[in-house]
């Protein structure tokens, strides 16, 4: 059993919720991606061309 616990420690920490089991590292990466996605939606994009040059509609 001690060998198993050592192997588990080497594999990282896991979070279990019912049938769902995910490593803390993977959950952190997913959370950062969701955060990036939300920030990309709300942070204004710098246009840099002034207000009179806002592109054209097709």
């Amino acid at each position: 059993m001690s060998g198993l616990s050592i192997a588990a420690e080497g594999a990282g920490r896991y979070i279990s919720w019912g049938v769902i089991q995910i490593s803390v590292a993977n959950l952190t990466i997913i959370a950062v991606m969701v955060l990036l996605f939300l920030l990309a939606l709300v942070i204004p994009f710098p246009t840099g061309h002034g207000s009179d040059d806002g592109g054209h509609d097709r």
Partner: protein
Amino acid sequence: MTTATGRPGQKTETGSSNWTTRLRNWIVGLVPPGEALPDRQPIYVASWIYVFGVLTLAALAIVIGSGCVLAIGGSAWWHTSSLGRYVNSVHLWSVELLFGFMVIHLWGKFWMAAWRGGRSMTWMTGVVLFVISIGTSFTGFLSQSNFDSQWIGSQGKDGLNSVGVGAWFNVLNPGQMLMWHIVLLPLVVVVVTVVHVVLVRRHGVVPPIDAEM
């Protein structure tokens, strides 16, 4: 058949009997004039969510570049060389970024319903790229030439054998997996990426849903 003059003294056929002309006309007609590398975009493109597609392309360029350097040293180079280990890490982390950017790009396009307006093939080529990229990274993990790749191969063989592809795609054959990883799958990824980008330029960036109503 008509003729047109290009350079001085040069006759250029625009008819359909010359396959070179037909191919050129086909290439020219793939994308509307001025849309291949546009310097202006619709105002709704001024959002960070539109950046993740090109970030994925940038990560792909680094993946391919670092992969080419790794190919010079060979698959075991990174075990014996600090430079090889560095290039291997660049290859790994650019792949990690590629998938992160690609998935955020996918989320953005999904919630935009980016298949609207005759863009179904753009969406589907993106889906195919996502699936093929997973297979390409899988063969990369199988090509690490270490215990990790042995473990992944032994874990993956039963699933692949159960669907009947083990005879042609043997994850316990590191030489075959390396060839799939550095020749076949990257070729498919690059070709489908080119098709995907051409389709984006051909149909334009999808407008927001409320802009169409």
